[in-house]
């Protein structure tokens, strides 16, 4: 059936800069904020914006992501008409089929899917941003301005601008130039990687781009510049509010810490029921605090057992912090265990990792130029009295007493 708007969520990225966290899962499936995974944000935004048809393009390590999305029920996307669709690369008659070569190629390979719904507009989203946004407002502006493409932009500092795709636009918001990571930025409007396209236009650009052997088939590098060159109307959509790219190892730590300021302008407020973030949550009883528990300024989730000290930290479901253990400024993902007397500071401990008694992981910030957030990958055991240095990325077990 025809849909006015279909959203396409690019969720195939390997997220190599997050490598200890994405050794088992695609980046959008990385746990976030105590209860969520990164993909919950764009998916919930879609549903809250009234978009009921979403294609999720997967490629890298899709198993956990696929089962997480399932029928789409947690987001009310299990529907007769529309709903959520997992779109992996596939074989076609004649050619051999290929992996998704780039963001634009991923959509190109799914022209058939989009044609089934024959939408007027396509919203392109990525699976590595934490934000709340009403896409319907953006589509509305797109319609009003009769644009071929509308790009969501955020005001950044001049310094940050060198790390983003920068949109140079006139006073009406019409883009006249696009610069990818400019050394000397002319403006501070950064692209958030969220696009609304008029589908009939985009469809043709995708076909032409695919025929160009020199193209890297990427929205930012190829499609947007080609549309600009052809004189299409490209408009900016000004976004105001919290937005965080969680593509590097420090940024998910930062963004999780931002969750500790509920109601604060500088973070996402998960308690705001007018724009709920939905998640598939496992069945767990409420969390338990023991007689020795001391929890402050932290998030704690169902199934946790806390009998130690937890401060300025985010605990996902089923985390155990035993008596005498301390967790400071850290992110403990589902099922992580911190045993008696172990100390975890400024660290990310991924799913099911075990910190044995007396071990020490990470350290508070210091003058040392090598200081950084320590990361223990999922399923890894850090042995008794072992030490994990700041900024270390631990992907294999650390034996008792050793340093890593």
């Amino acid at each position, binding site marked *: 059936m025809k849909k006015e708007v279909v959203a396409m969520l690019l969720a195939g990225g390997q997220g190599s800069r997050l490598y200890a966290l994405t050794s088992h899962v695609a980046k959008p499936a990385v746990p976030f*904020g105590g209860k969520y995974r990164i993909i919950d944000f764009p998916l919930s935004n879609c549903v809250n914006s009234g978009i009921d048809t979403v294609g999720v393009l997967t490629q890298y390590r899709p198993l956990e992501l696929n089962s997480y999305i399932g029928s789409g029920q947690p987001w009310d996307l299990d529907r007769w008409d529309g709903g959520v669709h997992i779109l992996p690369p596939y074989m076609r008659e004649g050619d051999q089929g290929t992996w998704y070569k780039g963001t634009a190629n991923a959509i190109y390979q799914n022209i058939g899917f989009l044609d089934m719904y024959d939408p007027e507009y396509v919203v392109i989203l990525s699976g590595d941003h934490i934000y709340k946004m009403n896409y319907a407002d953006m589509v509305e502006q797109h319609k009003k301005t009769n644009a071929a493409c509308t790009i969501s932009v955020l005001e950044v500092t001049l310094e940050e601008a060198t790390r983003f795709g920068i949109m140079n636009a006139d006073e009406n918001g019409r883009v006249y130039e696009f610069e990818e990571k400019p050394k000397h930025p002319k403006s501070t409007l950064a692209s958030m990687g969220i696009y609304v396209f008029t589908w009939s236009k985009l469809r043709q650009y995708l076909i032409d781009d695919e025929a160009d052997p020199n193209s890297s088939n990427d929205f930012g590098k190829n499609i947007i510049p080609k549309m600009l060159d052809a004189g299409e109307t490209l408009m900016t959509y000004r976004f105001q509010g919290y937005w965080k790219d969680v593509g590097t190892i420090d940024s998910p730590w930062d963004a999780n810490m931002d969750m500790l300021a509920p109601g604060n302008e500088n973070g996402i407020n998960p308690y705001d029921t007018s724009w709920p973030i939905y998640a598939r*949550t496992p069945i767990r009883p409420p*969390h338990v605090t023991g007689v020795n528990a001391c929890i402050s300024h932290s998030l704690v989730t169902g199934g946790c057992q806390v009998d130690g000290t937890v401060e300025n930290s985010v605990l996902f479901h089923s985390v155990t912090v035993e008596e005498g253990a301390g967790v400071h400024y850290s992110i403990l993902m589902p099922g992580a265990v911190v045993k008696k007397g172990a100390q975890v500071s400024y660290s990310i401990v991924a799913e099911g990792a075990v910190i044995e008694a007396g071990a020490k992981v990470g350290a508070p910030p210091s003058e040392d130029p090598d200081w950084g957030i320590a990361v223990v990958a999922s399923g890894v055991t850090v042995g008794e009295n072992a030490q994990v240095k700041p900024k270390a990325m631990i992907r294999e077990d650390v034996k008792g007493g050793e340093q890593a």
Partner: protein
Amino acid sequence: MNDLHGILLACRSDANLGELTRHRNTCSLPFGGRYRLMDFMLSNYVNAGITDVGIIVHQSYQSLLDHVGSGKDWDLSRKHGGLRILPPFGYAERGGDYRGDMDALHGVSDYLRNIRQEYVILAWGDTAVNLPVAQVLQQHLETGADVTMVCTPTLKGAPRFSEYVEVDETGRVTDLSVHPVMASQALESLEVYILSKKLLMELVNYCSAHDIYHFSRGVLQPRLKTLKLMSYIHNGYVARFQSVSGYFERSMDLLDPKVRDDLFNPQRPIRTKDQSNPSTYYGPDARSTYSLVADGCMIEGEVENCIISRGVVVEKGAKVANSVLMQGTVIKSGASLAYVITDKDVTVNQNRMLMGHLTYPLAITKGATV
């Protein structure tokens, strides 16, 4: 998968629970921070592979409907079978409450006739227990019993509301006493039965024709010799709810890790309505010790020995000890509570002091502001 159909009786409101059941059926009484009592038996059914469940309701079932919805949180929203809510549609001409469980079953006899499974499990939805229903069925089949009833050796109910059985060495029930003055026998019945659909229909028809409305008194007691009535002994934790202080004590039982391990056995998880709550936030000056705290709370004050449901707010400077706070309770700064049960959406204003006692906890009505 098995050939078992689940019937859940959710048609009694216990007058002895006072304020707690004024607005709801006992089966939808909140328990354990995030559950309603019926979650336990309903999850037991689903964990045993039951796909078709009928819930018999009579009065005050609005909160029950709201809670179970389509049954999707128990995977019971299905094209074929699944969850059916059974209001008293066949009972209109008589009016009033169902007089007993057989009355209730007769009220839904059209539904029972269409059951496609060979066996039926009957249970009340107001008992908190993690029961391995698949094992009960297996024993039922192995012993060739006509009726298998689940019993517990740990007596939990008040005698005047409970039923007790005596069994011989094979486990066959030799005596059944209903609501005695004192509990003289060693086994308490949980009023959970497995029997064949065929036998159930015969009994429902017989009872209807003879105006018998009580299963234990009217059917089982007179037929102890003719029906092979076997006991299944469940040694795990069982909580029944027959008074406000009993509700309070059973809630506090959950602070014992052994009780939690049994009741929330991860192999047979207790499912409940998913509300997409965020994690619970503890403020900089918060203190939480020896407590069970559900998701979606904001704890900035102190809680100790408490059961705290989803979405509760305890402001900075508030102190709550030995209390049960249901969903949406707000305790403002400076307030102090001990041995209190606050029902849903209760607000306790600044600097109020409320104190009950272990034997007489103070229960505050749904939606009240103190």
